[in-house]
């Protein structure tokens, strides 16, 4: 569950920016003949609603209802007592209590019939059945269409506000990395320091994954319990700040930093900068590089729906999906060097055609 700082700074995220995003969705709705769009949110899938309204559920569920004009309405499965809090952290027209989200949505559609009648649902296939069933079995079920592509078409590139939030999230992660004690022996000690630093810096959430001993295994794990840290280990921090997520991965050596890692870091930067909207694959430049090591795995992720980060391209998928220049994305790369694995990751702003990408940190 979310348990970091959730607050809305009007300076960091002006209401006018949120209204502009909603207006952009409403323009697309009108062009596509949609009378309403429904967007589900939970802490596992918060990003679409947060991008439009700044609302992030710390637990529980809600459904955002966007008509072609006017402010969005939130049907919230939260207790009414939480509505004041919801209003204080988000920009919404109306908040309605909806313990049974699906029934509430069907009733709301009856109260305010969409015109035109087509109803878009973001990520319809993934909508929880408990929410979907009453809608699909209502008189409006036949009018429901998937609105995933429509939403994705407006979600990226990132605006300046989102880029600033991402930069702040990245700074929080970098500060947390700096707080790692040089003599850390156990994963629990390390993760405790990372959590404390990130949350005291205002992180809304921090999800650490750890490869505690790179000599044994480079898999990044969610740790329950503890583990002994090896001489070389890797940490991935996924950090949210005001609903904007970034992912940063760093290798740590308890000895002198291996020279091979410097080369790997250079190679990461080189590979990241060569990405752009027309080239979302690492393979040619990485395999063509004169630097040592070979690529073991890579991913490019972005936010274009309700998940905080979704895969755009990986070394395992032959056809990356399209992403426009200016998109906020995260590159993660694992290299097999002569002296062992190396992992790196950082957020970037994707270059336009022919333009280099810019790393955020």
């Amino acid at each position: 569950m979310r348990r970091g700082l959730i607050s809305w700074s009007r300076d960091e995220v002006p209401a006018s920016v949120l209204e502009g995003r909603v207006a952009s969705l409403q323009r697309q709705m009108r062009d596509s003949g949609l009378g309403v769009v429904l967007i589900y949110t939970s802490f596992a899938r918060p990003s679409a609603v947060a991008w439009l309204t700044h609302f992030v559920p710390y637990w529980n569920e809600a459904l955002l209802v966007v008509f072609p004009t006017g402010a969005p309405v939130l049907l919230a499965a939260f207790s009414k007592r939480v509505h004041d809090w919801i209003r204080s952290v988000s920009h919404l027209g109306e908040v309605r209590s909806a313990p049974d989200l699906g029934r509430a949505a069907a009733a709301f559609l009856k109260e305010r019939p969409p015109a035109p009648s087509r109803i878009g649902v973001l990520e319809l296939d993934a909508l929880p059945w408990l929410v979907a069933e009453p809608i699909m079995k209502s008189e409006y079920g036949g009018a429901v269409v998937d609105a995933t592509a429509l939403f994705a078409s407006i979600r990226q590139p990132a605006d300046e506000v989102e880029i600033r939030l991402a930069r702040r999230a990245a700074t929080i992660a970098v500060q947390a990395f700096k707080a790692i004690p040089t003599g850390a022996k156990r994963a629990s000690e390390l993760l405790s320091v990372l959590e404390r630093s990130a949350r005291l810096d205002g992180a809304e959430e921090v999800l650490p994954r750890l490869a505690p001993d790179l000599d044994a295994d480079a898999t990044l794990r969610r740790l329950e319990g503890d583990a002994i840290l090896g001489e070389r280990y890797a940490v991935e921090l996924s950090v949210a700040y005001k609903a904007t997520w970034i992912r940063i991965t760093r290798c740590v050596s308890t000895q002198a930093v291996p020279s091979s890692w410097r080369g790997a870091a250079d190679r990461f930067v080189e590979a990241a900068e060569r990405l752009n909207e027309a080239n979302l694959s690492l393979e040619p430049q990485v395999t063509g590089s004169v630097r040592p090591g070979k690529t073991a795995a890579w991913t490019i992720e972005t936010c274009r729906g309700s998940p905080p980060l979704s895969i755009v391209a990986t070394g395992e998928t032959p056809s990356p999906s399209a992403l426009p220049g200016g998109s906020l994305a995260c590159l993660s790369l694992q290299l097999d060097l002569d002296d062992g694995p190396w992992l790196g990751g950082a957020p970037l702003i994707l270059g336009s055609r022919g333009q280099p990408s810019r790393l955020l940190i």
Partner: protein
Amino acid sequence: MSEIPGNARTERRARLARAMADEGIDVLVVAGNPWRSDYLRFAADFTPVEGQAFAFIERERPARIIVEHPAEAARLRSEQAELAVSWSLSPIEETEAAIRELGARRIALGPLAAVPYRLAMGPLGASIAPATALLDRLMLRKSPSEIEAFRRAAALADEGYAVFREAARAGRPEYALVAEVEAFFRSRGCPENFQILGSGGREVRGMHPPMERRLAPGDLVTTELTPCVEGYYAQICRTLVLGEASEAQGRAFAVYNEALEAGIAAVRPGARARDVARAQNEVFRRHGLGDYVTSEYTRVRGHGLGLYVDGRPAVLEDVDLSLEPDMTLIVHPNTYHPEVGYFVHGDSVRVIPGGCEVLTRTPRRLFSVPLA
């Protein structure tokens, strides 16, 4: 990296396999995500961090898992080498195809809380309710190893509350308190915690995630914190005051403490959830505070705990579910008090023959934190 003892995993799998056999189910497809990971954790000992996940549970074979992210697939393979793990950009479609490939076998799909629309619309739609009921039955009463994990989580909740009390100082922002608690939990190998809090006076109507508000002298500071050990959540609710408690705050505490004790005294096998709720609410009514046990001011008077932070039963006066030995729950008469604001007080308990065992041990006091 999971430190779940192999016997707990094996024990859950064996119970599930027996139940599937009893119900004539060959393959149980269990859906989950980071919000509803409880059923997946029970069936496949897997807690997803990101994306959708689906487990195909067969009675005699290791599970097959489909996840949405390559990093999730890699970590799951490293945690449980015996599983057949794959990832897909379209895990729901992949799962749909995998269900088709199972052919004429007897397949069920659940749970209701996590099944996505596309799968529910398929041929297994009618199986969702019975499959969910099967899993709910198994998850309600805890096995000895589950109780042990719950017991450890309760002990950690006590320790976490001590850290919270130490961190609660005038001038600190709410989110700093949670940062200290999280750092402590991580230092003890605990990756997950549900925690909300409130601070202030009569204007405070509930709890919420931490905000930027700075604690001030005289504040009531409420929290419910809920660490997770081996997947099992235990919860504690306490209220503290910054400085000396006022007379009104002391009087309020006495009511909540009486209600908590009454609620706990009502927990026993055969009692219904409504009995536990009524026992607490009657105390408020006797003190002329009956208006404040309605949904206008409070949500529940406790709830089940286990692999989900807010499980069955909801402790409410209209919930009939009977308590049975080895069910685990929190009893908490949390609600608004018109003189002092929102107030919380609750303990985690295990139902045992003849009554209940209280597993959180933090003293039931209105803690006072010195201002200096």
